[in-house]
């Protein structure tokens, strides 16, 4: 019985581990979308933050430095997106897709270019140490829950902290109000004297920076090994875009929403061991193909999109002006 309990605990523990990069990606994208921009470049933004953050972090042997670099480099990608879509009025879909192509390609280019010089995680013991799981006093002693929620590495808690902060920011601060006004009706926001380009630049950059942290987390979680065929981000950026819809543009809900999506992802990995541990109750899990679990987040989001559009009198958190560029002197 203790064995089956530990499988369950490990299962739920892993859900948290898998959902955290999604949380970074989702919260970052929410900040961007609330400003009225749809950034389809999450995948690429995360990839750039991941690879640069990881390499510099390893060289400096400091998780903090790694996080700073991940944030800054991704924020710079955000600046590029802002420059193209806000200042130069380029199409957001096309720019976002280009960022994804470019970001993932840059990831490979750097990885391939370094070749044998690629830093191994073992070469940075202090960084590894900072990233290792830590038990929060008292809370981690709670049976079951303690292990599942309160004995993770620091970046897990930072992610949750950022999500909560973003919620507070959007809903209780004056700047948050101004940001939402831009996403809903940029023309109105402009006439109110809100500096739209500045606000968009800042929030797109911060949002992108947050995504970069998620990328770094993924890289560290995968042990920092570079594979020539598989990008660390591996579709998590796209799931994040889906998640934004799932959580109705609410950063606090994102904590719950990513947990749900992480659940499916973990199920993919653990379905075998769960089925063998609980043959009676969960035996059927073994028969479900792993790819189904991978596709599930997208299937659910698709259903939500359809059901949501069928509902009348909806109160959606979707910014009304999303995806549209704003040019003041247009006529």
């Amino acid at each position, binding site marked *: 019985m203790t064995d089956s309990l530990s499988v369950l605990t490990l299962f739920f523990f892993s859900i948290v581990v898998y959902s955290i990069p999604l949380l970074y990606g989702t919260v970052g994208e929410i900040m961007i979308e609330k400003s009225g921009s749809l950034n389809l470049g999450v995948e690429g933004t995360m990839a750039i933050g991941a690879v640069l953050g990881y390499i510099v972090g390893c060289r400096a042997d400091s998780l903090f430095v790694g996080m700073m670099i991940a944030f800054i480099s991704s924020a710079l990608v955000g600046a590029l997106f802002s420059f193209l879509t806000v200042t130069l009025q380029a199409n957001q879909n096309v720019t976002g897709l280009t960022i994804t192509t470019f970001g993932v390609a840059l990831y490979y280019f750097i990885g391939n270019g370094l070749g044998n010089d690629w830093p191994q995680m073992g070469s940075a013991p202090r960084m590894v140490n900072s990233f290792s799981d830590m038990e929060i006093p008292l809370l981690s002693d709670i049976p079951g829950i303690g292990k599942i929620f309160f004995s993770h590495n620091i970046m897990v808690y930072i992610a949750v902290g950022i999500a909560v902060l973003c919620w507070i920011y959007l809903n*209780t*601060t*004056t*700047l*948050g*109000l*101004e940001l*939402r*006004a831009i996403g*809903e*009706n940029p*023309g*109105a*926001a*402009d*006439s*109110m*004297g*809100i*500096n739209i380009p500045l606000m968009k630049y800042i929030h797109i950059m911060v949002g992108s920076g947050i995504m970069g942290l998620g990328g770094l987390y993924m890289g560290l979680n995968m042990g920092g090994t570079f594979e020539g065929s598989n990008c660390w981000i591996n579709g998590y950026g796209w799931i994040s875009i889906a998640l934004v819809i799932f959580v109705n543009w609410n950063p606090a809900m994102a904590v719950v929403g990513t947990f749900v999506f992480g659940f499916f992802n973990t199920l993919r990995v653990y379905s075998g061991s769960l089925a063998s541990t609980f043959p009676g109750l969960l035996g059927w899990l073994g028969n479900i193909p792993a790819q189904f679990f991978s596709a599930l987040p997208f299937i659910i989001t698709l259903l939500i999109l359809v059901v949501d559009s069928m509902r009348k009198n909806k109160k959606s958190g979707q910014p*009304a002006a999303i995806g549209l560029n704003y040019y*003041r*002197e247009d*006529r």
Partner: protein
Amino acid sequence: MADGEYAIELRGISKTFGSIKANRNINLNLKKGEILALLGENGSGKTTLMNMLSGIYAPDSGSIFVDGKKVSISSPEDSVRLGIGMVHQHFKLVEAFSCADNIWAGVLNKGILLKKDRYKEVEDFAAKFGFTVDAKKQVSLMSVSEKQTLEILKVLYNGARVIILDEPTAVLTIQETRKLFDVLRKMKEQGHSIIIITHKLNEVMEISDRVAVLRKGEYIDTVKTSETDEKKLTELMVGHKVDLNIERGELRKTTPLLEIRDLTIRGDEGSIAVEGLNFYIRGGEMLGVAGIAGSGQKELCEAIAGLRPVEKGSIVHKGKNIAGLSPKTIFAQGIAFSFIPEDRLGMGLAPSLSIVDNVILKKYKKGKGPFVDRKTGRKEAAAIVKDYEVVTPSIDTPVRRLSGGNVQKVLLGREINSSPNVIVTAYAVRGLDIHSSYMVYDILNEQKKKGVGILFVGEDLDVMMALCDKIMVMCHGRLMGVVHAAKTNKEELGLMMTGALDLTSKSGKTAGIASDSALTMEEWERGPEPAEEVDDDE
């Protein structure tokens, strides 16, 4: 009154959009504590000029002085800081926000956290100016005049000392306009300086201290209101003497062409937009439709054109019911439709397509084979451009690039070219200058002479009283009565528009039903026969 006499001074302001010179070397000043009316025909550059004060546009050249100090306004934020506030013609409100949040989002130096008591604060502030508002009400649930009140509050809350209103009365009833003017006078007493843009001369005379006149992007003159009259202002505005009287075409009415009985239509939100409406148009007659914006005029027009499903009732055209048929069928019966929406390009035209492609819009399916016949289309487009004096670089120019008046000419030209027997026209002169307006009136009168029945949905009561034969008034989707245009007055129309006066039950007979209907009583009861549907596929 501290330093200087003027709250605002503009010197040599110019602004160009592409090849259009919207403002040329404009000089204008606003005294402290006065109401200045900015008068000009449409396209004279009033809104453009004011948008430069509110920071929406930046001038190409020239300088702006506020309280005697030279300033540079390159964004709305600058404008707000300088104490200038503008109430735009098309409201700039966030629909998903509450009243208080709309005000709050624009407040400068409001601290970091949103205050919980902001709702009460806004309500208290509003009370100071005699407004009662529900600060928690969402904008999407507000009526037009509530939205305007909110816009004014927004500007006042920001501490604006100079307030610009862009055609504020366009969407209001006469009674609401009076209330607005009371508010403006009160603001003036408190030391605010106000610029009001309008092209309604009576309002200019009523509210303003001085009038500044623009013509075709140029500054003409500023005169004291007390030293001028409507005639003189019109002269300044259009540059030459114009006959203020619109000619009413000779009335040679025939049998009822279009009869509407017991018509009920639902609006976009599913609520009843038009209810139990009865009226008719005879051949050779022009029927005006008056009503406050959103009283069901749009829905009525769309239903006649077949663009909106009919909930109940019949639309009988020459004895056949056309209710519920496709737009194509209805058009084939000879019912033309020209609806000029607020943004001018929404309905009836495809803005990015060329004049040619817009002219062939309704007949592109004619002719055999899979290809569009553009040859005849080009000829027709060239003819419209010539006949209606459309100003355009070529017939291949996208309609979007034309100015408002020219767009309307293309639209009307196409509709009239289809030689209709009924014309449904809504806001035909919306946004047109006087010259173009008169041209439109002439066109319509000419059609009337040919025996065409015209439904003229309008905004300006003066115009309708002068142009139409009869005026039908709607209020909240219901008929309030049909009056003879020559015998009525504005007060009566205004009362009917607000629902205060109902003429439908005055005389014994039901209003809006022709005594010599095209159908007999039995036929009406049996339900009129539907007209034959035109097959969509060749």
